[in-house]
């Protein structure tokens, strides 16, 4: 009897507990939104609203000093056919501007080459750091240094090293007999892009290496042990075992770097100002916004840049089915 009574009592308290728990969980969900609100408001103010305004400006005739008096003019910043009235006419606007398309091409080329090189060098450095050897910690610290140096500082440091007359790079290459005469790395159109890519690769390879290293460290050790006992040659082991296993980490690293490379501004602006050979989409947009006083036109370039990058990102997330929820782990 006593036992049955206490059983009933226990069921009642259990039911009460469930009710309490669900009330608590509702309460927690309410507090979740309360906690998120300040962050979301700030993000909306610094990202969403300015983005909306940029897109709006791209459809107006806004100029730097008359932002408030901007009038809607439709697609004219993007594309417009001006009829000269004598059966002759000309296309104007961003989409008809060869300098814009040159900038798009420069940006894509820059991203493609620099990210490929960074992946390659990053992989080599990560494989080295994955090995155990005396002084490994110090090597890793040294590798991190280019990452910590501000982009502007690296750009100026390299601009000095690549100086056509007094630069140490020309001096080295001449001593080694690789070039006959000093090269004007940043000034000549043929080498300007090489110089910019060189600095970017130097500066951001550490980031790539660290992300790949994190991927490598998640590969179970016994996998290597088994392969070693079976006598699998190192290169095959890398291609058949290591590479597929680190692929997810590698893809994440590549997408982050690619997104970053597609918006490149600092290095180009500082090292090779005003040259068609290296002008990227970001540089083109800022030039129009603030230097040429074509605020609306520059906004159109910014808008287009945003959609190009967004498209690439969505495509990538879709193609790789990245799991961002993190619930299924």
């Amino acid at each position: 009897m006593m036992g049955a009574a206490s059983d009933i009592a226990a069921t009642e308290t259990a039911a009460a507990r469930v009710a309490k728990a669900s009330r608590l969980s509702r309460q927690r969900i309410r507090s979740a939104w309360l906690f998120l609100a300040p962050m979301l408001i700030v993000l909306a103010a610094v990202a969403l609203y300015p983005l909306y305004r940029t897109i709006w400006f791209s459809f107006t005739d806004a100029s730097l000093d008359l932002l408030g008096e901007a009038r809607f003019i439709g697609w004219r910043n993007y594309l417009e056919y001006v009829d000269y009235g004598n059966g002759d006419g000309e296309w104007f606007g961003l989409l008809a501007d060869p300098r814009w398309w040159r900038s798009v091409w420069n940006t894509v080329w820059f991203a493609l080459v620099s990210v490929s090189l960074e992946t390659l060098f990053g992989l080599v450095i990560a494989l080295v750091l994955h090995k155990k050897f005396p002084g490994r910690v110090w090597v890793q610290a040294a590798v991190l240094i280019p990452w910590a140096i501000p982009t502007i500082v690296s750009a100026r440091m390299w601009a000095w090293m690549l100086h056509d007359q007094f630069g140490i790079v020309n001096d080295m290459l001449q001593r080694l007999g690789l070039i006959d005469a000093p090269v004007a790395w940043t000034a000549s159109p043929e080498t300007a892009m090489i110089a910019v890519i060189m600095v970017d690769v130097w500066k951001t390879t550490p980031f790539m290496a660290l992300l790949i290293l994190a991927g490598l460290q998640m590969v179970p050790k016994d996998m290597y042990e088994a392969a070693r006992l079976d006598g699998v040659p190192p290169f095959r082991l890398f291609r058949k075992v290591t590479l597929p296993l680190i692929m997810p980490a590698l893809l994440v690293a590549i997408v982050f770097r690619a997104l970053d490379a597609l918006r490149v501004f600092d290095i180009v602006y500082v090292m090779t100002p005003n040259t068609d050979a290296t002008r990227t989409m970001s540089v083109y947009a800022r030039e129009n916004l603030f230097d040429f006083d074509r605020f609306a036109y520059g906004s159109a370039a910014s808008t287009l840049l945003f959609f190009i990058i967004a498209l690439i990102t969505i495509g990538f997330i879709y193609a790789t089915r990245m799991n961002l929820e993190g619930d299924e782990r």
Partner: protein
Amino acid sequence: MTAPAWLKTTGFYLLVGIIVLQALFPFYYAILTSLEDGQALFEVNYLPAVFDLSNYRSMLSDGVFGKQILNSVFVATVTVIISLFLAITASFALARIRFRGRGLLLLTILSVSMFPQIAVLSGLFELVRAFGLFNSLWSLVFSYMIFTLPFTVWVLTTFMRALPVEIEEAAIMDGASSFTIIRRIFVPLLWPAMVTTGLLAFIQAWNEFLFALTFLSTDSQRTVPVAIALISGRSEFEVPWGNIMAASVIVTLPLVVLVLIFQRRIVSGLTAGAVKG
């Protein structure tokens, strides 16, 4: 069939040597140049030949550069404090409470951190002018939220998720409010993660260029990256490379020291956040 062991070892250490050399040489060369003056500057040296502090003296004596360093310190510090404050509660909600739309929200936050800054530049410029913040350091504190906030939220969420559920269960059943749980349980546990995240956000804010170039217009308001980018001579031949290198070394040295001290933490924070500094 395989190469002898000593050859392999030598090759490996040769590779290590090359990696270290390429990473350190440019900064080493900047220090070397910063210590040269006059004619010595225009002779290529591989090893220190002179020790002349006049570049440092001329950079630090005019007062403007000192002010610019303080500007950078102010902007980066305030930005980090505000982002951490906003991020800790937000990431608690994102990491510990299940609610509908959480995945989408995280995705949105991640995509904001990848926003090309130029895409918001026109709109931000309008806002900054409307608030009367043009040429004020607060314009940078405000606009830097666009990259420090998503980054800190993302990294802190990752760290918070890794903590076991049990640590808060007792507190929930005792009826403690979520805010108490954050303050009494998570903040003490997450101190190391917050230091790491704060440090990385600090480096990002310290290095930012585009907004600082656009929203500040006078020399005494500028931050150091812009100041260094704008040092130039009257002609191509009068660019004061010695001064530029001295300024570069001054603003980079603290970062290098931080990297050496916090190396392990930085690596864990970077790989958790996977966002460039």
